[in-house]
């Protein structure tokens, strides 16, 4: 344990990185925040609808336990339960903290926090600041970090890129290799621990709701250096985004939380303007199929239904792959106050005002439930031991991960407004454990020979020089597009093994073409191209992890839908029957007559499928490719059961 102050390197200036940095400053340790761009501009600003906490402000009977249940059910029971439960119990305190640091959350008549509905729950659990909640949270946390910066407690390295971890001879992470994005020089930074708070990998698909920095390169770099990567195949497709040539812009779930309705004309190819189509000739497909949750079914369910309406039933608007998201029945003032942010975006990009005409939307790649494998320590009472060095630790000692970059919390499908929560929760929660980790070290970073750092720097310097010298015929930006097209083609809402096998071969082709890349800019000042080529390399490797995980997982769970393995839940099935069945089984044989026809068969299929597949996917980089193994999921608190939302 070092006598000097502990020094922690935080990579990423989004919600996770900022909340962790704030916590570290408060505990009087040194922290360096490394950001690819100016703080305040991270992708977290794109989150719109809100952040969940079961404060039960509307006296609906909500509780953190309900929040926990909705979250694990929403994730199709693939999430480790103690972590989810601890997060949900911490959520109210997190909201209060955010309120105290000045987030402009919407308020009630009495001046308390206002909450709204979101998907996958029947409670009003989502605190929000208009429709730019993520932006408002980033700003408030950024302001706290700036406050510490003003006091000299935090160092920020903006316009710096993380290239990799500095590993000592024992494989322990002792610092980070960074590139200054202005001078393009490579250097190392020694630290007692390194944290990757680097967000998700939406750019693997090119067009998504993600920002341009979301390449997933930092997490992939850790995977290439030996860290395990978990549940890679679970990519969330958000049901409602504006189609566009450069980006698929998110139209928040809060639009539906505030009463927005999805519909298509009942008649295929009906090209009448939407307002002239009478109610009786509209198909409100989610409300019809899911009377209980209606438009607020979880995202995986809604996206599948839209896909079905458009491609199987050919009912897309005027034959195009789009459906209506309709808010026009709500008052204009209400919409402006609650959803102004997204209404502006829609107006600016389409020229139409959603207050007057229904929006035209389609699903888009949005979030990665998967990410770096991280550990945790349960306290035996269904919560987390907060001081444990195992929390949020990757499989590389000294390297931690949090936020979208880790694979925890959301299982096979994330519920809306839970990502801001998991990002801030991990940032705040992991601090104590990292301190314990540093305290427990026999050997400190000060004892590591300088050659370890020199070698790491030399490795990356020559790697970037090699990239700069690439003078082939492939334009790297075009190659990225081609990779995105491949992933969009077959690793999306509906997945089929034959097509996935083809995708793997296509990614291999991309990998071959990568060798022939032309580094179209080889200057040495503020040159983004070599850095991008390195990120592209990472995206290709990560696309293999995602696709291979998808091929191997022969089931239908959450966002991973393989029609071939759909267990065909009977339409009149009640999930409580399954609990009943398990209990009956405990007492001996279960008679076929105890359940409606076909239900027992279904439950047996469900049970057998869970035995085979209720497990986390773990990818490790071995022999230049992802090797997949599986780990059990901690389901110690609630029994996994069939999901149902109608």
């Amino acid at each position, binding site marked *: 344990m070092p006598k000097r102050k502990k020094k922690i390197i935080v990579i990423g200036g989004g919600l996770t990185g900022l909340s962790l940095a704030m916590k570290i400053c408060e505990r009087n340790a040194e922290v360096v925040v490394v950001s690819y761009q100016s703080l305040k501009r991270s992708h977290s600003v794109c989150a719109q609808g809100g952040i969940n906490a079961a404060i039960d402000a509307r006296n609906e009977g909500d509780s953190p336990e309900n929040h926990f249940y909705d979250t694990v059910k929403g994730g199709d029971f693939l999430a480790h339960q103690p972590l989810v439960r601890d997060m949900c119990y911490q959520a109210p305190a997190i909201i209060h903290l955010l309120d105290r640091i000045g987030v402009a959350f919407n308020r009630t008549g009495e001046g308390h926090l206002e909450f709204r509905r979101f998907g996958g729950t029947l409670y009003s659990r989502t605190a929000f600041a208009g429709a730019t909640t993520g932006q408002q949270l980033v700003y408030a946390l950024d302001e*706290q970090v700036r406050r510490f910066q003003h006091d000299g407690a935090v160092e920020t390295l903006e316009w710096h890129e993380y290239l990799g971890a500095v590993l000592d001879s024992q494989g322990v992470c002792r610092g980070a290799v960074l590139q200054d994005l202005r001078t393009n020089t490579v250097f190392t930074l020694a630290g007692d621990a390194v944290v990757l708070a680097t967000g998700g990998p939406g750019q693997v698909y090119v067009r998504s709701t993600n920002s341009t920095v979301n390449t997933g390169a930092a997490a992939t770099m850790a995977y290439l250096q030996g860290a395990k990567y978990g549940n890679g195949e679970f990519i969330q497709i958000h049901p409602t985004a504006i189609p566009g040539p450069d980006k698929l812009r998110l139209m928040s779930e809060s639009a539906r939380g505030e009463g927005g309705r999805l519909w298509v004309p009942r008649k295929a190819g009906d090209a009448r303007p939407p307002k002239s189509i009478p109610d009786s000739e509209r198909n409100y497909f989610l409300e019809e199929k899911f009377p209980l949750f209606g438009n607020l079914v979880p995202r995986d369910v809604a996206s599948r239904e839209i896909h079905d309406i458009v491609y199987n039933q050919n009912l897309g608007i005027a034959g195009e792959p789009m459906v209506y998201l309709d808010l026009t029945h709500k008052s204009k003032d209400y919409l402006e106050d609650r959803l102004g942010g997204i209404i502006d975006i829609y107006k600016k990009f389409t020229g139409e005002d959603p207050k007057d005409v229904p929006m035209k939307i389609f699903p888009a790649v949005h979030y990665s439930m998967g990410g770096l494998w991280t550990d945790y320590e349960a306290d035996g009472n269904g919560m987390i031991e907060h001081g444990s060095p195992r929390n949020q630790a990757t499989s590389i000692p000294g390297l931690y991960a949090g936020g979208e970059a880790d694979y925890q919390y959301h299982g096979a499908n994330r519920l809306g407004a839970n990502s801001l929560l998991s990002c801030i929760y991990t940032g705040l929660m992991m601090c104590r454990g990292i301190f314990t980790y540093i305290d427990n070290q026999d050997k400190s970073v000060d004892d590591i020979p300088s050659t370890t750092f020199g070698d790491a720097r030399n490795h990356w310097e020559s790697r970037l020089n090699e990239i700069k010298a690439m003078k082939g015929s492939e334009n790297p930006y075009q190659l990225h597009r081609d990779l995105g097209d491949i992933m969009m083609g077959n690793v999306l809402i509906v997945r089929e093994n034959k097509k996935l096998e083809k995708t793997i071969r296509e990614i291999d082709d991309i990998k071959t073409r990568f060798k022939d890349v032309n580094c179209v800019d080889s200057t040495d000042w503020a040159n983004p191209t070599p850095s991008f080529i390195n990120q592209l390399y990472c995206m290709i490797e990560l696309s293999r992890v995602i696709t291979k995980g998808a091929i191997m997982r022969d089931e239908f769970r959450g966002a991973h839908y393989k029609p071939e393995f759909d267990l065909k839940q009977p339409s009149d099935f009640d999930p409580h029957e399954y609990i009943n069945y398990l209990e009956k089984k405990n007492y001996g044989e279960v008679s076929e007559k105890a359940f409606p026809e076909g239900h027992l068969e279904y439950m047996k299929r469900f049970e057998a499928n869970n035995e085979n597949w209720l497990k986390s996917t773990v990818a490790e980089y071995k022999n230049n490719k992802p090797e997949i193994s599986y780990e059990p999921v901690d389901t110690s608190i609630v029994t996994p059961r069939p999901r149902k939302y109608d």
Partner: protein
Amino acid sequence: MNKKIVKLKIKRRDKPDAKPYWQEFTIPYKERLNIIACLQDIQRNPTTQSGESVNPITWDCNCLEEVCGSCTMLINGKVRQACTALIDSLEQPVILEPMSKFPVVRDLQVDRSRMFENLKKVKAWVEIDGTHDIGAGPVMSDKVRAQRYALSECMSCGCCLEACPQFSLTNNFMGAATFSQVRLFNLHPSGSMLKEERLDAVMGEGGITDCGNAQVCVEVCPKSIPLTESIADIGRQTTLQTLKNIFMK
């Protein structure tokens, strides 16, 4: 206008101290193209109109939906975000230049760190006792919240400063964005505890009295933040503070 192609004229600069130069590009037209998509197109085929192979353009962007504030530049002479600048509504050739009130890093990329330094000067934050759980925040009317929210949408994009006749590369005028943040934090029940320090910070050189009231800041703000109201309000607050300083100190 020929719909088949898009013509762009871009002001480039290789390094901060290098001389700027112009290059022209032609790219295929597509529906709903914005400036970012055009620049990405040039990345994929970095060739000028005259067929010369050049380095792709360097610029800042991230969210592509006008919430991150990164991609501010001059488009046909007007300061705005490149992501919401749609080709269909722009005259061609579209002229792209970096902002002129911030040091150029390369091409269309500028260094806006001065904006963030100013936020430090005015203590644009709420001072809290700690991040531990000490219960709910202060009760606040939704009306005040709405007022604060409008100010809090400032994404430090720099449009108001670029348009401001008072703000220049060489002086230290803080500008509308900073004054508006003073108002934002002075409106918060616990934030207002630093009110006097904030006002003192905008009463010195480069502060509120240097504002020439040109009122262009509010016209170019992409988020329609009531910047001139903020300036007037901070003007009033500083006047009161001056009187207070005279009589109380």
